[in-house]
């Protein structure tokens, strides 16, 4: 069990390949938590990872490890970290030589090295692979070796740059489970770069969404993934853009938000009347019903009339988007439910959700 350590960066500015400038006034990863850096390719997430991981000195800015400023030249700080990249980048030779590499740099005694290598390989499910040449490994095995090579160092900070992106989905799913299990055992602080929001949602405590060098949204995974700050983030996360409204009444922990003509929603939040807000409802919290259905005794405060505007397949379920006033709300609906209701694009529907499901932020 590693002792947790917090990692932060402040006032970072650094130009990077795609022509943008990384510009991050402040980002922090509390001790023992996982931050997902989420964004499309060329958004600067790998550059930010390299800066946080002391692999690259930014043109400007500071990196703080447990509150103390550190730099790429602080060997002590660098030895507290380890990274796994999208490709395994194994060194020519045996599996053991690879896993041992960081231990030799740390001048760990030879007998102890062999022992720790064996344990690390066991941990990633590759016991007995030590003597194999890396050239004989499959893609998934190679990526596990890369993970073992980092874990054997018992790092206090682990940096993962799309560690699963180059594998096919079957392997990727298997390894994601392995990674998650392994990381949960440790108190390690993790920065996980990904372009896949499902992956981010599955692994991260906090999420920072990046675009064109900037962090456009940052916060607990549950918030960021449900209340995108702008249309770009919404589209990137595969969500509808948030609705805009004005608080008309407030009290008892609830606010009424007017959004468009004759549409009002109730949300669990505290804002002064008159405040302009944005809001969103996670698709998994929205129920749909046919227009004529009598929705039984439910604790849901919001029962709105809307029109189905889109029905899209999303893997095993369907994503139905309904327009309510001027706001679009999406709902995840199982095929069984969709068949039963017979919903079609252009038809009316009831949109039902609880006040506590509504995410609100002042505009």
């Amino acid at each position: 069990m590693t002792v947790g350590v917090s990692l932060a960066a402040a006032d970072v500015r650094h130009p990077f390949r795609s022509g943008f400038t990384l510009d991050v006034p402040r980002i922090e990863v509390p001790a023992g938590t996982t931050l997902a850096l989420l964004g499309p390719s060329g958004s600067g997430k790998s550059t930010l990872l390299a800066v946080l991981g002391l692999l690259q000195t930014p043109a400007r800015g500071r990196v703080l490890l447990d509150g103390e400023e550190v730099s790429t030249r602080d060997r002590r700080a660098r030895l507290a970290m380890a990274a796994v990249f999208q490709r395994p980048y194994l060194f020519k030779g045996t599996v053991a030589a690879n896993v041992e590499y960081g231990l030799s740099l740390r001048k760990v005694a030879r007998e102890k090295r062999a022992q720790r290598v064996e344990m690390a390989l066991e941990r990633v499910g590759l016991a007995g692979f030590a003597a194999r040449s890396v050239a004989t490994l499959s893609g998934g095995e190679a990526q596990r070796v890369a993970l073992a090579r980092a874990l054997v160092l018992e790092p206090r900070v682990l940096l993962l740059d799309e560690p699963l992106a180059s594998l096919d989905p079957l392997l990727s799913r298997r390894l994601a489970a392995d990674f998650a299990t392994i990381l949960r055992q440790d108190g390690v602080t993790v920065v996980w770069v990904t372009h896949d929001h499902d992956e981010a949602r599955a692994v991260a405590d906090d999420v920072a969404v990046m675009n064109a060098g900037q962090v456009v949204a940052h916060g607990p995974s549950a918030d960021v993934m449900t209340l995108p700050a702008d249309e770009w983030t919404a589209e990137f996360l595969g969500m509808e853009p948030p609705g805009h409204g004005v608080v008309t009444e407030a009290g008892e922990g609830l606010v009424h938000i007017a959004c468009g003509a004759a549409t009002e929603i109730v949300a669990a939040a505290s804002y002064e009347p008159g405040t302009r807000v944005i809001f969103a409802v996670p698709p998994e919290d929205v129920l749909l019903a046919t227009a004529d259905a009598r929705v039984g005794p439910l604790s849901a405060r919001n029962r709105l009339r809307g029109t189905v505007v889109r029905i899209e397949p999303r893997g095993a379920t369907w994503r139905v988007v309904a327009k309510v006033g001027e706001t679009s709300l999406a709902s995840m609906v199982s095929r069984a439910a969709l068949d039963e209701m017979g919903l079609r694009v252009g038809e009316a529907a009831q949109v039902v959700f609880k006040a506590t499901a509504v995410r609100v932020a002042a505009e």
Partner: protein
Amino acid sequence: MRIYADAVIEGWRLLASGALDVWTIVLASLRVSGAATSIALLFGVPLGYWLGTRRSVARHVALVFANTGMGLPPVAVGLVVAMTLSRRGPLGDLGLLYSQTAMVIAQLIIATPVIVAVTAAAVSAVPRELRLQARSLGASPFHEMLLTVREARMGLVAAVAAGFGAIISEVGAVQMVGGNLAGETRVMTTAIVQFTRMGRYGHALALAAILVGIVLAVNVLLTAVQTSAERHEAGLR
């Protein structure tokens, strides 16, 4: 057509009889080019590593350097070395002109850019991310260099082969600074030229066969090493 048969028979007799003049010439070639290659490696490999790991501007410079340095006419090198070592030249007092040392100097100048260029190419073919990966595991810049050179070791073999191959076949510069003195500075290439001009095709052919054999052996070895390395790395990266 008998000219070929005659020359082959004469050449074979010369080699088989162990006629001293032929093997003396071969040994002189190997000694001079071997020494020049070894010294060129000392300068060329670190320089090549430095150029191969730099980005953008420095890499562009390396490209120009490689192209022109490798394309530098050996006769131009020979001219400058000959002038420098000539009696009126700045190093004339050393009396090195028409010695094996002079030939080593000229070949060193010819081989170094080749070794630099091939090393740089091999090193720059090691993914930058591999160095980044090493760094992320705690490697210092020195450790990074060790690892990169280790990963690029096939390229170093190629550099040695390319450098050695370029100078053992060269004739202009060694003529100019060596002078083709029998038993001393007569090497395979200069002897082949001389014997050919004298119409002694048998002698020329015997030496040419050995020269081609050496060059072939170096290249076959190199290809074998590269192919086995490629096979070894197949599936990786």
